[in-house]
């Protein structure tokens, strides 16, 4: 009797479990998103979420994929690496997502990367620090990136490549020979950009007059800028986040620095609002230019949905989540391993920003071009569309 009863119980449990998993298979496909919805990079985080939600809305309106809707689960990681790891772990363990779209902050990417390798759920992000996708990357030897983290993907030019863009442009198009830098080693994004810039400038046989650092939280760089003014380089590279870039630009103008300011992709909006005319004359590379006619469809669509113009990371959000969802569609599966394999083999994914061809050795895109923009007063003008720097 007892045996019979336990057999029935086991049978019932099995039925419950199987219907449970069946229900899960028929429910929406859960995708995790952790983004900086608060903190210093909150505007970027919110923009990526807006861009990605627009994509998901469109896909769902068209019936979803494999007959299932997409359900994004979004957590705020507050520009903090610990919060990023917490959010990723929670998405994997509690929400059981099949893939994750992560914050673009490199410090967070560096913290999540080893965790993702252990938990084996792929994470797509815009962290430009090479060490997020290739953990053994050596600053002095960028040509040999080392082993790849199988579960991390980057969808834009990495920091070294982005710094080559502006360094190459300054050398070849603006004819500059001497440079200095103002950056912070406390932010891996800024640090890697500066190291890449220095590497390229030296390889091209030009002079790096001095690299000046500041500390996290510092807002006053007049001491560094005074030294830079005395060195009088032709180009001053300032690769940080918006508030730091804006403070540096204002203080450089106040000290009457003559060097041309060269920026990173954080010199785009809202720099025009935060730095205003202090940014006048600065050049910087950007993944997109709104003057590019091919972006019009997306711009109109986004404007209609949110009643505002898309900023850089609105485009990013659309492209990144699109890449992730395409991988699920191509794999025809929600098995994270299969999704990962498809991502690693992705070629010719047509994003609004550009065509993504993933290099399986680095999990970074190959050959993506960037636009070069310039501040004229507090207006941002496009100087060159689709620029790619000369080889060293």
């Amino acid at each position, binding site marked *: 009797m007892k045996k019979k009863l336990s057999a029935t119980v086991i049978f019932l449990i099995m039925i419950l479990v199987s219907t449970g998993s069946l229900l899960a298979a028929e429910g929406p496909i859960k995708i995790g998103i952790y983004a900086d919805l608060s903190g*210093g990079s909150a505007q970027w985080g919110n923009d990526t979420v807006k861009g990605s939600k627009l994509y998901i809305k469109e896909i769902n309106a068209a019936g979803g994929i494999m007959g299932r809707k997409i359900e994004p689960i979004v957590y705020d990681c*507050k520009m903090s690496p610990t919060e990023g790891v917490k959010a990723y772990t929670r998405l994997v363990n509690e929400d059981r997502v099949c893939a994750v779209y992560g914050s673009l902050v490199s410090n967070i990417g560096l913290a999540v990367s080893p965790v993702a390798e252990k938990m084996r759920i792929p994470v797509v992000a815009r962290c430009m620090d090479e060490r997020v996708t290739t953990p053994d990357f050596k600053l002095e030897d960028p040509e040999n990136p080392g082993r790849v983290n199988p579960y991390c993907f980057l969808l834009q030019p990495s920091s070294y490549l982005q710094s080559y863009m502006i360094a190459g442009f300054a050398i070849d198009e603006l004819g500059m020979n001497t440079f200095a830098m103002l950056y912070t080693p406390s932010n891996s994004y800024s640090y890697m950009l500066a190291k890449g810039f220095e590497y390229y400038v030296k390889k091209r046989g030009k002079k790096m007059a001095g690299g000046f650092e500041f500390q996290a939280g510092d807002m*006053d760089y*007049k001491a560094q800028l005074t*030294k830079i003014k005395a060195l009088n380089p032709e180009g001053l590279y300032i690769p940080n986040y918006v508030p730091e870039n804006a403070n540096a630009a204002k203080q450089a103008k106040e000290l009457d620095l003559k060097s041309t300011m060269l920026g990173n992709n954080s010199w785009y909006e809202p720099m025009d609002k*935060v730095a205003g005319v202090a940014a006048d004359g600065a050049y910087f590379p950007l993944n997109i230019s709104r003057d590019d006619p091919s972006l019009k469809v997306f711009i109109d669509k986004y404007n209609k949905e949110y009643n505002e113009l898309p900023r850089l990371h609105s485009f990013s959000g659309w492209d990144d989540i699109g890449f992730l969802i395409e991988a699920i569609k191509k794999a025809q599966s929600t098995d994270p391993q299969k999704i990962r394999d498809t991502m690693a083999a992705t070629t010719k994914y047509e994003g609004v920003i550009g065509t993504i061809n993933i290099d399986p050795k680095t999990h970074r895109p190959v050959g993506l071009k960037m636009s070069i923009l310039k501040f004229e007063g507090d207006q941002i003008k496009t100087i060159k569309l689709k620029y790619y720097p000369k080889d060293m």
Partner: protein
Amino acid sequence: MDTSVFVQQLFNGISLGGVYALEAVGFGLIFNILKFSNFSHSGVVAICAYFGFFVSKYVYPNFIVTFVMTTLFGGFVGVAIEKLIFRPIRLKGAPLTLFLVNSITAAMLVQQFFAATLGADYYPYPVFLKQTSLHIGTLAVSKTYVLMLGITAVVLLLLTYILKRTKIGIALRAASTDIRTPSLMGINVDFIISVAFFMAGALGGITGYLLGMTYSVDPFIGSMILKGIIAAIIGGMGSLGGGVVAGLLLGVVESFLIGEIGASLTQIVIYSAIFVLLLIRPEGIAGKRYVIKA
């Protein structure tokens, strides 16, 4: 070092040190009377930095008007903080550590509040001064910093006058020597404490406004006052004059060190130097020894 760089760094340091001095005095005023480290001062600075932005952007874009408004507002924020979180525990006779804990909690609360509500956007002040720098030979002097330095000097002189020459100032100084005795002489101690918080708050308002106008406003702007607190410690927690001297000194030393040995090493050198200084002279540059500190 060439002379023009030297003079420029000296000026950079003094203008930076002026802000540290303001912070040190705002912090020191409360320490003087209640003998605890009032970290909630950073909260006042942050609240006023945002307040200054909103009034100058949306209410009345005039420097003097918004500056005065923010200063007064800072004073009231100071009083409100005292009434809400310090007075109740003071009346219960709570130990000084509890004051310290409350002040840190208040600072964190303000920071997190702004991070959660306003953290997603940037708040650049309107540009009040069109031409950004004056030129004296090779020296480029930013108008904003001259203004900042001028305001700091005026405010500190005014404060000295109030403390030395007015009745309320004398009562404040009496309370700072011993908080109980003045009440025996018919002085309303609660009122005196409110006045102290009003003055410290007003200084916080000025600091927040100047920081917001010169740099940019973010939820963590209050943490800029850490240097001011350090200046107050070097100066001697009891001495406002010591705080001013230490603030200026800290600014100048910092500017020269950053220029010569880099920002990362500078902080190590400065913090180590503070240790050594406090070993040799625990009361700071000008301070008196206090038995109870929290």
